[in-house]
C-alpha cells in the first residue's frame, strides 16, 4: 500500500455508517416529556408532607420574639417610672429632681476640701476656683450663676 496515502482525506469517510431503530427520532420528544413528567412526579412523592404548625413555625417564632422583646421593654420602663410609690406614677419634675440628685456637682466647698490644700490661709485660690468652674460645672450651671449675679 502507498505509505503516503492519507486515509482521512477521503470525503467518503465523512458518510455516516451508524443507524438507529425506525422511528427513533420521531418519538424522542414524546419520550423526553414523559420522562420529565415521571421525574417530577417522583420528586413530588419523595417530598414529605409537613404539618401546618411546622409551616407556621418561623412566623410563630418571630411573633414570640417580638412579644418577648416588647414585654421586656415594657417591664423595664414600668420599673424606672415607679419612683413615686404612693401614686404609682412619677412626674417629669420628680424624674428631673432624681437625676439632679444623682449627678449634682460638688459644691465649691466640697471641691476645695477634696482638692489638695492650697495654703494655710484657708482661702480659696484663683487657680482652684477656675479648675472648679471648668471641671465641675456645666455650661448650664455657669449660665445660671451668671444670670443670678446680674
Amino acid at each position, binding site marked *: *500500500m502507498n505509505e503516503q496515502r492519507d486515509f*482521512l482525506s477521503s470525503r467518503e469517510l465523512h458518510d455516516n*455508517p*451508524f*443507524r*438507529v431503530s425506525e422511528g427513533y*427520532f420521531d418519538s424522542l*420528544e414524546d419520550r*423526553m416529556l414523559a420522562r420529565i413528567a415521571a421525574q417530577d412526579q417522583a420528586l413530588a412523592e419523595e417530598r414529605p408532607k409537613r404539618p401546618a404548625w411546622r409551616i407556621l413555625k418561623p412566623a410563630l417564632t418571630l411573633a414570640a420574639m417580638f412579644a418577648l422583646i416588647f414585654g421586656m421593654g415594657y417591664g423595664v420602663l414600668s420599673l424606672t417610672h415607679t419612683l413615686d410609690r404612693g401614686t404609682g406614677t412619677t412626674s417629669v419634675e420628680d424624674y428631673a429632681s432624681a437625676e439632679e440628685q444623682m449627678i449634682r456637682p460638688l459644691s465649691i466647698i466640697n471641691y476645695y476640701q477634696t482638692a489638695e490644700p492650697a495654703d494655710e490661709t484657708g482661702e480659696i485660690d484663683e487657680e482652684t476656683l477656675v479648675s472648679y468652674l471648668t471641671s465641675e460645672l456645666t455650661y448650664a450651671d455657669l449660665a445660671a450663676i451668671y444670670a443670678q449675679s446680674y
Partner: protein
Amino acid sequence: MATDREILELYREGGREEAFRLLVRSYQERLYWHIRRMVLDADDADDCLQNTFLKAWRSLENFRGDAQLYTWLYRIATNETLSFLSRQQTRGEYAGLEAADRLPSDPWFDGDQVQTALHQAIAKLPPKQKAVFLLRYFEEMPYEKIAQVLETSEGALKASYHHAYEKVKAWMKESLEAKY
C-alpha cells in the same frame, strides 16, 4: 427548523413544553450523531442524549443567551458524554474500546473496512481529544465554536486536533495494512 430566537421567545411566553419540543426536534439528530460517534453503542448514545435534553430542560430557564443554543447544547451533550465515558473507564483503558472492537458485528453499524478502521482508531484517543477530533473532522465546526463547547483555547484545540489527526491516520494505516 425553529430558530433559537423562536424557541426562547416561546419559552419565555409560557409555552415551555412546546418550546422544548421545538428544541428537541431542531437539535436531536445533530446531537445524537455527535454522541454516537463518541460512545459507538446505540443504547449508550440514547442514554446520553436523553440526559442531555433533561439537563437542557432543567437549565433553559437560566439560559442567558450569551451563547447560541447550538453551542450551549453541544456543551451539555459533550460534557454528559465525557462523564459517561469517565464512568465506563476501567483498568487504565479508555472507555469505548470494547464497543469499537464489537463494531464489525454491531447490527446498527453499516460501515466498510475503512470506516471500521477509522472509528476503531478514534476510539483509542483520550476522551477530550476524541471530542475535538469528532467536532472538527465530522461536524466541521469552526475552532471558535469548539472553543465555546469545550471551554478551551483555540490554540490548544488546533494543536490537539493536529496530534489527533496524525494518530488516527497512523492507526488506520497500521490496521488496514495488517488486513492486506
